[in-house]
């Protein structure tokens, strides 16, 4: 990666670009739009992939662990300690630590990203399940629902707002952290940022950063819409 960066000119299109580019202005929109498809588009797609895979796998692991901890209380502390420990590892170090084991690969990046989602997803799912009103549980039991039916029809739907809140935080965090994954050469919006740090070209730096922020906001908004669609009862108020 380092060699690729070194081959690029310090200022792109030297002596041919617009006044803004030649002056290395804060943000040259003409350059941004001219080069979006080449410099940013593919990286944005990679970034979305990195995030989706991390949150998807992280949720599967954390959700399963929370279900286990919900029925077997002893499991909560060890898993909470484990996921909290992973959460404390500095991200740059975590990515670097994985390289000797799984190489400069997407696998390395995903292992680190998944690890950071576990704590919040586990905590929120478990809290959501525990905060289901006891009377709803009693009613379900008295009506002859089995444990499985109570979990699927009563407890999980009622825990959904807390679970969705966890997914939102995990997604936004992962979008932010995934920029660091470019350090081990797996692409994403971190790559133009790293390159711009090397070259000093401000527009590329600012644009990639803004795109990451924008992606986080859009993802969060979409998740809010999804949550509203899934929990119509949460907004029902007395007429």
């Amino acid at each position, binding site marked *: 990666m380092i060699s690729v960066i070194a081959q690029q000119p310090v200022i792109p299109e030297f002596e041919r670009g617009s006044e803004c580019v030649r002056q290395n202005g804060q943000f040259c929109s003409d350059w941004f739009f001219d080069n979006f498809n080449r410099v940013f588009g593919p990286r944005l797609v990679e970034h979305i992939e990195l995030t989706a895979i991390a949150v998807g796998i992280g949720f599967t692991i954390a959700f399963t662990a929370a279900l286990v901890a919900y029925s077997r209380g002893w499991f909560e502390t060890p898993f909470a300690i484990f996921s909290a420990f992973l959460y404390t590892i500095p991200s740059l170090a975590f990515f670097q630590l994985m390289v000797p084991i799984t190489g400069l690969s997407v696998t390395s990046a995903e292992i680190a990203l998944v690890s950071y989602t576990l704590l919040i997803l586990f905590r929120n799912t478990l809290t959501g399940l525990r905060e289901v009103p006891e009377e*709803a549980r*009693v*009613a*379900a039991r008295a*009506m002859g629902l089995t444990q499985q039916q109570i979990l699927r029809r009563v407890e999980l739907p*009622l825990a959904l707002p807390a679970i969705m809140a966890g997914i939102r935080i995990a997604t936004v965090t992962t979008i932010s952290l995934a920029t660091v994954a470019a350090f081990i050469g797996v692409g994403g919006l971190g790559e133009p940022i790293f390159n711009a740090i090397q070259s000093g070209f401000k527009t590329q730096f600012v644009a990639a950063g803004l795109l990451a922020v924008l992606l986080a906001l859009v993802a969060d908004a979409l998740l809010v819409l999804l949550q509203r669609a899934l929990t119509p009862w949460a907004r029902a108020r*007395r*007429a």
Partner: protein
Amino acid sequence: MTTAESGELLGGGAAGLAFHEATKVYPGRSTPAVSTLTLEIPASEICVLIGPSGSGKTTAMQMVNRLIPMTSGDVTIDGRSISSLDQTELRRGIGYVFQQIGLFPHMTVEANIGTVPRLLGWPKERVRARARELLELVGLDPEEDLRRYPSQFSGGQQQRIGVARAMAADQPLMLMDEPFGAVDPIARDRLQDDFLRLHAEVPKTVVFVTHDIDEAIKMGNRIAILRDGELVQYDTPDHILAEPANEFVADFVGADRGLKRLRVWTLSDLELEPAGEGAARPTAREDTSLLDALSMMLVEGAERVTVVDASGAPKGTVTLETVTRLIGPEKRAVGV
């Protein structure tokens, strides 16, 4: 045969319920919470379990649907031991209403009421029709309210939905644990009246737990008074008020038990004396309670009250003496 028809208890109607020396000892306690309780509740009657807190009334009730497992003894429904029935099938066959209501906040009213029918595999259309019918029966609007969520209703309305849910699969037996305890007195009175009307229309066997003696007298065909896990007296409200088994019961029903007794009866329960010419004041309809009739006579300083029918035509009279003699020292059986 679908699951609905194979449900052990579900066949509509009402079921006879009996406790046979049912006993519950909680782990780590030396005295039983319920001790050799033997009690028979005829089909379609409302039996009120009442007693001070810690008397075991809720424990006794929850043994019926095995929310609390018995230590020894047995409970039978139409002669069949509850231990011989599958636990989930037993519970699906018994309606359960409790003070905290426990409606599912994430389900519409229709889905709440349809919970057990859906478990039993009823087709969607039948579930909807049943929910509609029950909402009407408990006094809510089947058009508007079916799609709304529990949080959109008042406490009293929520408990009406709770009652509808407990009857959804035409369960022959209902357990009600202080069902109207959390609503304000005015709403409670209406809920009680409406439930009695509903019960007359759709008679189910009901076990009703309360700590309110007035509610017990109003709701119960029979009242079982419990103390420290033991059955102290089991009888009709009138008999319990007329002849409390011991001082504990007399204390429990209150010093005004004579007046309470008058509330149990209405003028139509008495043999009327012929009315004089015209309807002398005060006048009262046949469905007036004896307590209200007594109050009218005392307020008006009258010796008798004229009983009139719905159109206001006199049917006869009841004298002050007849009423007071009912609850006096030489108690007479009311002429029914």
